[in-house]
């Protein structure tokens, strides 16, 4: 782990210690799929996300760390601010010469979420979600439709999302913005073993478009969620199972997506 990552995580942990506490943490169970719940007015949470991706066609490792400050605005609205740090190393080939290229980037994101109906009080929970991200070489716009439902021990959630990614690239010696359209569907289920512990199953179908569908891959994995009063932690291992379009290796798309992902989110209510 490099110096930037360590400093970034220390700053986030230090900010947690500095601030006082109340009660009622948000019940986020999944790591990839969002739920319709929002924080109450004046409630605040710090979340630290770590996602490790590995296993492209040629050597590639990537860590994304996000420090999120989430706050409830009341009236079913919630907003969150993120500081994002990405570090990646990948094998490159130029004129037959192989070398390892490492790069890192900071960016800022802001999300807004509006809960339309509740997963427990209503027959179906539903929320609208929007997020923008500003980086030095990349900008993103993302929207989601979030559906979820709570049974006694079982929680189900389903998201449909669309994303526009603007990435600065050098093409024919000229800088230009490359636009990628993405659309994901995620579906997750969680079973409550006891009030503090859930087992989770998450599935994501990720798609990239230009004029038409360019690549599509299915990821499915398992994880757990631990909840204790003001603290929760969720972990999921998400391997790529099948590429519906754009397969490169044994039915997987290892050009656009990684073979394996791990995500850990831990949160503390302030």
């Amino acid at each position, binding site marked *: 782990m490099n110096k930037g990552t360590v400093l970034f995580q220390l700053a986030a942990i230090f900010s947690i210690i500095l601030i006082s506490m*109340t*009660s*009622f943490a*948000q*019940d986020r169970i999944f790591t990839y799929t969002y*739920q*319709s*719940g*929002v*924080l*109450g*007015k*004046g*409630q605040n949470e710090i979340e630290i996300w770590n996602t490790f991706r590995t296993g492209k066609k040629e050597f590639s490792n990537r860590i994304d760390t996000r420090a999120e400050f989430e706050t*409830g605005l*009341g*009236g*079913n609205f919630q907003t969150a601010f993120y500081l994002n740090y990405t570090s990646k190393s990948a094998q490159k080939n130029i004129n037959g010469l192989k070398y390892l290229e490492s790069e890192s980037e900071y960016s800022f994101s802001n999300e807004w979420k509006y*809960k339309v109906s*509740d*997963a*427990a*009080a*209503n*027959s*179906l*929970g539903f929320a609208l979600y929007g997020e923008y991200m500003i980086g030095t070489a990349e900008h993103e716009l993302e929207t989601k439709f979030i*559906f*979820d*439902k*709570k*049974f*006694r021990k079982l929680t*189900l959630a*389903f998201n449909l999302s669309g994303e526009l990614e603007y990435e600065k690239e050098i093409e024919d010696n000229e800088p230009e913005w490359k636009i990628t359209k993405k659309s994901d*569907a995620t*579906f997750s289920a969680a079973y409550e073993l006891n*009030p503090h512990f859930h087992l989770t199953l998450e*599935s994501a*179908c990720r798609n990239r478009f230009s004029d038409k*569908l360019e690549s*599509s891959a*299915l990821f499915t994995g398992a994880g757990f969620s631990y909840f204790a009063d003001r603290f929760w932690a969720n972990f999921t291992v998400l391997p790529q199972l099948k590429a*519906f*379009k754009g397969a490169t290796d044994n039915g997987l798309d290892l050009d656009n997506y990684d073979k394996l992902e791990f995500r850990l989110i831990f949160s503390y209510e302030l």
Partner: protein
Amino acid sequence: MSYKYFSIAVIFFAALLLSSCGPALYIPEVRDGMNGASLNQLLKGRELYSEKCGSCHSVYLPEKYTIQEWTSRINEMSGRAKISREESTLILNYVSVKARR
């Protein structure tokens, strides 16, 4: 399985599962009467709980906390959510019926 059929199957099953059954937050019945609260009072408690608490955050199932925990949490939140003493009592009566023992 092709991408098209897979997408249709996922969306169909997701919609079916998510929209099936009623809400998880229990709807009081006659047998739920407790602490002298009538069925109408419990129904009013559910309505207030969904509206006053659920308008700001996700509602928690009554089974999640004990009566003591509910009492302190409702007292703590009633000021913030502008819930009167009378309304707090109705909400507490409602959640107490299924509170964790």
